[in-house]
């Protein structure tokens, strides 16, 4: 399912943050969302996920297709890692908890309460939740916060596997994940896609 965004304008607290945003996210592709703090990356992801209406413009192909991972992971501290994942798998009507545990190396922590995990381990569990949703389009907001080098690699591998299965991902991040994808460079009231290599060259 291709996500098509046309002339999108979004607001945060009634103030326009991005205007005239157009892009396409095709199956098997990743789009890296970059821009300075406060530019509206989170607001854009929330709008695409359907949590808030756009001011103008259209979003096609998003209906019941998007798995959204916000800054907060939606984990319950008094439930175990497995119980947290089982709950979200039931809500989305999927299975595959074991493969999610494997992908983020959570097997040893499976019976531990989420409240007893470190920040990085919680983040891994939050990302494992994306796998159990079974949704094709991932929207990830700063997914690598608190992750160590190995965990970032695990995450990048999970995204690659997802893309290989025909999924797509829109990722707001400030680090290079080594993914084969385009960069959506958002600035004040405008946005245009650039190839990832050019951007990285300029960025570094």
């Amino acid at each position: 399912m291709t996500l098509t965004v046309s002339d999108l304008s979004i607001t945060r607290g009634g103030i326009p943050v991005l205007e005239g945003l157009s892009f396409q996210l095709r199956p098997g592709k990743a789009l890296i969302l970059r821009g300075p703090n406060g530019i509206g990356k989170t607001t854009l992801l929330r709008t695409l996920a359907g949590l808030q209406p756009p001011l103008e413009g259209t979003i096609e192909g998003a209906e019941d297709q998007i798995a959204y991972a916000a800054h907060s992971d939606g984990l319950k501290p008094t439930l175990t890692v497995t119980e947290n994942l089982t709950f979200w798998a039931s809500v989305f009507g999927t299975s595959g908890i074991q493969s999610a545990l494997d992908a983020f190396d959570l097997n040893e922590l499976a019976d531990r309460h989420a409240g007893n995990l470190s920040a990085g381990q919680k983040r891994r569990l939050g990302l494992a939740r994306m796998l159990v949703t079974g949704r094709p389009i991932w929207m990830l907001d700063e997914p690598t916060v608190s992750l160590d080098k190995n965990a970032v690699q695990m995450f990048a591998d999970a995204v690659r596997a997802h893309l290989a299965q025909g999924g797509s991902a829109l990722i707001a991040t400030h680090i290079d994940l080594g993914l084969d994808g385009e960069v959506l460079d958002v600035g004040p009231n405008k946005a245009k896609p650039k190839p990832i290599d050019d951007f990285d060259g300029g960025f570094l």
Partner: protein
Amino acid sequence: MIALLLRDLKLAFRAGGGFGLGLAFFLIVTVMVPFAVGPQSSLLSTIAPGVLWLGALLACLLSLDRLLALDWEDGSLDLLATAPLPLESVVTIKALAHWLTTGLPLVLAAPFLGVLLNLPVPGFFWLVISLLIGTPAMSVIGTFGAALTVGLKRGGLLLSLLVLPLYVPTLIFGAEVARRGATEMEVQTPLLMLAGITAATIALLPFASAAVLRINLR
């Protein structure tokens, strides 16, 4: 939907889940009433239905601010809003879980607390029946209040101020059923009114709760 209900029940029973807080509050309020009004059994017997109803109502109110706020704080509410579950179902299940963990224990405890207030024997049955019919409305109205105030810092007090006036019809007819039952009077009219209020709130308020929740999540 079942998964959400089971998760909420599990969370309520685990450490820090708050199960039993409402019950303990109900017990303490009921025990304190004779200290305040004096030990005359005839006076206690007269005010028992009203006091028990008011105690149950305030105990119900106590746990409302956690109903949606915890899910909002940890981001679950955002994720549930993007899940293939209508928000109307989410708020209905939340209200049901609240009733099962707060309302139902109050209903079951009420007869024992009725003994402490010298509730007349015929009143026990009608007290339980009136609470059984009335407490679901309190959970559903409470969920609406929680949806209105979710995301507000220190929204608990505002929640109480918003919800208490909405509880008035339920309190009037619920306490009236218990009072009439205790004095062996006809209870049909207030009982039907109470059941009507509960049926209407269950049918209509989840839509309102989901609508305000959608606005508050923006």
